[in-house]
């Protein structure tokens, strides 16, 4: 290569390789040190933080699960008091749903999606950072309160009036409701970032119809979050105002209605399940394709199924409320409508199995999780079919049968794929492979432990054990089954522990992975492992759904983005035709400071509504500084020849 013009501001044939890396790194890296660490806007750093935090919450909530299983192992056990138990199951459910399951899916996507789409960062990078801080603060507040014996105790869906001012005095439920506010703000911000990134920042040529299925699932999920989360935010807002300023939304004696809470909550709560499940199906589609060495069978059918599941989810909330005395005329409608969800899910299962059939499967560890997922999740889906039937649900509702059902759906249907996906993308994020042997062992132990824990619960439920009881009398015939479940829980926990150990060991001394250790097809494998701070030296361009398989080493790339400033490529939403070079914001501490100002306001407002007024000022100042444009420290737009 001949001598380089030092002022050359764009990549291209003249500027590539080491010199390009140097300049791009200079443009995209953050400051070193603590302030730099707190200021980062890099989606990879935020994504990793998000994932680690979510797994910490998983571990905490898992420990609570173990404590519950210890208490329930024997009848009339006095290990913990009713009051503590009620806090524990509320914390377990709340943490798992709001602080683990939804955030971890977003977290995985925050890390992977920009790489899959072939872009350098997400849109609204600072909002992305803000979303993480809000999530962290909300979760921390909840757990600090729990440690101080002020943990919520009204169940993860906090039915009114049990959670209302009269029957839940003190601050416990306020903490719960305010945690919802934190996670809503965080989740909605992340959803907007996710949706706009997927719609606007794909590689040139990656039309919506060529987008990776995981990106499709996250697009559907982001839109679902945008539609569903306001319901629970409104609901918890009404609950807070009932509790703090004396409104009567849920007070039947002043014209309110206790069921209004449930309608709004489940309008969110039902889609919530799919918000957790759909990203998992996205993982499965990626894993199945890679390890079957062929694209997923019937891509359009899979994508339409994803969308169908997302759309149907908004019509089904009442099937959590069959026993509340809804008009009986509606029962047949609700049953039929709830059952329709199994069609798109059935289609997806068929397509995955057909992909394995048509391909040449390799049984690496991620693929084992896929098989574990199918074997487990289908049981959860089929018990869901049972629960959709009103006459069956009126018996099974609120028993351990339901507990079994949703753990099959959420662990089998979402955590198994998640662990598979972590194994799959671990080498991309760290540059090292996870151990196959330890991976297989942790899969086997987790799988056995899971079924041992939750399968007996179907029977416990059929034998009449209601959920959310801190103890049960001897002589009901539930003792042995509960003991089996408790032993299973210990094994399950051990399996997850093995997984974590595998992560730690492999992070330190795993086999070094190349750019594309699984020989997969997606763009995230086109860059080094771990990727450079700017993701891709030249933005890739794609012409098919499986670019690396079709193009081999010679993936076409585009040129022309600035290398002396942060620039991203915006494309048209459907056909991915390049349209604008968007500047991308630099790292700044202000999203964190804004999150602190707003977080303090939220927590303070539990104690006095005036906090909303006082907190407005620092919050507004922080947000204004955040959005205030900085002095341009890069030269103005270079000339184009």
């Amino acid at each position, binding site marked *: 290569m001949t001598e380089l013009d030092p002022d050359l501001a764009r990549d291209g044939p003249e500027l590539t390789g080491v010199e390009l890396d140097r300049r791009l790194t200079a443009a995209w890296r953050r400051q070193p040190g603590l302030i730099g660490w707190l200021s980062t806007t890099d989606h990879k750093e935020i994504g990793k933080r998000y994932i680690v935090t979510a797994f910490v919450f998983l571990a905490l909530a898992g420990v609570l699960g173990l404590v519950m299983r210890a208490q329930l192992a024997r009848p009339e056990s006095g290990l913990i008091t009713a009051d503590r138990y009620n806090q524990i199951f509320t914390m377990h459910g709340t943490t798992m749903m709001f602080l683990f399951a939804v955030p971890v899916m977003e977290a995985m996507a925050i890390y992977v999606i920009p790489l899959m789409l072939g872009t350098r960062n997400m849109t609204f990078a600072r909002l992305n950072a803000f979303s993480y801080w809000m999530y962290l603060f909300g979760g921390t507040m909840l757990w600090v309160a729990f440690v101080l014996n002020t943990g919520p105790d009204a169940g993860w869906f906090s039915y009114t*009036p049990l959670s209302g001012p009269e029957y839940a005095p003190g601050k416990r439920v306020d903490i719960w409701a305010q945690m919802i506010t934190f996670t809503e703000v965080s989740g909605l911000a992340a959803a907007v970032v996710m949706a706009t990134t997927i719609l606007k920042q794909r590689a040139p040529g990656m039309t919506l119809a060529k987008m990776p299925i995981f990106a499709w699932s996250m697009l559907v999920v982001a839109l679902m979050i945008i539609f569903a989360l306001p319901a629970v935010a409104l609901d918890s807002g009404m609950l807070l105002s009932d509790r703090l300023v004396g409104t009567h939304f849920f007070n039947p004696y002043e014209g309110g209605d206790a069921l209004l809470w449930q309608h709004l909550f489940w309008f969110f709560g039902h889609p919530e399940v799919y918000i957790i499940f759909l990203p998992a199906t996205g993982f499965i589609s990626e894993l199945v394709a890679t390890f079957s060495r062929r694209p997923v069978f019937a891509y359009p059918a899979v994508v339409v199924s994803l969308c169908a599941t997302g759309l149907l989810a908004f019509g089904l909330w009442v099937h959590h409320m069959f026993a509340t005395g809804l008009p009986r005329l509606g*029962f047949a409608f609700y049953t039929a409508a709830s059952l329709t969800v199994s069609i798109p899910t059935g289609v997806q299962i068929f397509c995955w199995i057909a992909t394995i*059939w048509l391909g040449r499967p390799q049984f690496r560890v991620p693929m084992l999780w896929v098989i574990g997922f199918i074997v487990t999740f289908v049981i959860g889906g089929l018990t869901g079919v049972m629960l959709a039937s009103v006459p069956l649900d009126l018996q099974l509702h*609120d028993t351990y049968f339901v507990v079994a059902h949703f753990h099959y759906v959420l662990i089998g249907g979402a955590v198994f794929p998640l662990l598979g996906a972590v194994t799959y993308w671990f080498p991309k994020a760290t540059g090292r492979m996870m151990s196959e042997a330890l991976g297989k062992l942790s899969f086997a132990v987790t799988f056995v432990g899971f079924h041992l824990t939750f399968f007996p619960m179907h029977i416990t439920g059929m034998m009449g054990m209601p959920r959310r009881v801190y103890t049960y009398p001897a002589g009901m015939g539930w003792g042995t089954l509960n003991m089996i479940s408790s032993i299973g829980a210990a094994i399950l926990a051990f399996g997850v522990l093995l997984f974590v150990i595998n992560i730690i060991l492999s992070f330190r001394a795993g086999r070094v992975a190349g750019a594309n250790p699984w020989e997969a097809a997606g763009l995230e494998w086109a860059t080094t492992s771990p990727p450079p701070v700017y993701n891709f030296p030249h933005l890739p361009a794609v012409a098919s759904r499986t670019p690396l398989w079709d193009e081999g080493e010679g993936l076409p790339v585009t040129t022309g983005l600035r290398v002396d400033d942060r620039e991203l490529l915006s494309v048209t939403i459907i056909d991915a035709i390049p349209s604008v070079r968007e500047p991308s914001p630099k790292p700044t501490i202000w999203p964190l400071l804004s999150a602190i100002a707003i977080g303090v306001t939220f927590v303070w407002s539990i104690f006095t509504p005036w906090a909303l007024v006082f907190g407005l000022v620092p919050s507004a100042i922080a947000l204004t500084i955040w959005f205030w444009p900085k002095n341009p420290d890069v030269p103005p737009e270079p000339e184009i020849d």
Partner: protein
Amino acid sequence: HGRQVMLGAAGRDGSMFANLWLVFLIVTLVFYALVLIGLVWAILRRREGGEPATRTGLLVWVGVISVTLAGLSIASWLVDRNMNRAPFTGLTVEITGHQWWWDVRYTSADPSQTLRTSNQLHLPAGMPVRVILKSADVIHSFWIPNISGKQDLIPGRTNDIVITPEKVGLYRSQCAEYCGLEHAHMAFDVTVEPLADFEKWWAQGLLPARAPVTPLQKAGYAYVTTRECSTCHNIAGTPATGQVAPDLTHLASRLSLGAGTYPMNSGHLAAWVADPQSAKPGNKMPVIGLEPDQLNAVVSYLESLK
């Protein structure tokens, strides 16, 4: 065992549930088997040979699922149109849920025949009973698994359910909606008996409480009917007419104490009266702090309330 199981089929709805359950179980097992066979076959099949018509397979699969779902919907509908629809016979029970006990009223057109009791239900076998469900505080759920499905008790609303117990026997019901601290201890006993026995029970229930006989009982009577107890509890035929706590008129004839928490016997009764807050923490009965001799007397009197 077996006093609180779904497949007990001791009632009309319970039997219909058992049949429908079987249908769903078989159908879902078939589908699970299909998926597993497909998966195993896909993994194990020899790779050479022609591509199967997978696209047609997908269409057939969607067709099969849709038809099956339609069938299950219809099966479900056939059951739910018959559920809760037994002909009305005039027997109505009104149940009000409290944290954490059940207030039960057998209503009658003749107000003098209205029977109030707590934490137990006696039902005539083979006769549909309309149960009216209300709540005094939070949401509870009424559920006798052997006999029928659930129905919630919701403050500000009145729900109802028609249950038809069929098999004579002793069953248990437990609150099925989380209702606070002692949700686990909100159960009651259900006695299904022949109509004649039921009528006898009702007639006996209408009688005022037995008068105390022994001196100890009399001392207990004096305490219970004049001191703290009488402000909350009702004992028919005595000055104790409180309405906010369980009715004690025939307390000792019940099978359990504290809404299904303990079996009824003098030991548990004594423990309860001495310190209700350790027997069932959080319940609304305060610790009175009786002297030992007072406690003896009260328990002795309560035990006599057959």
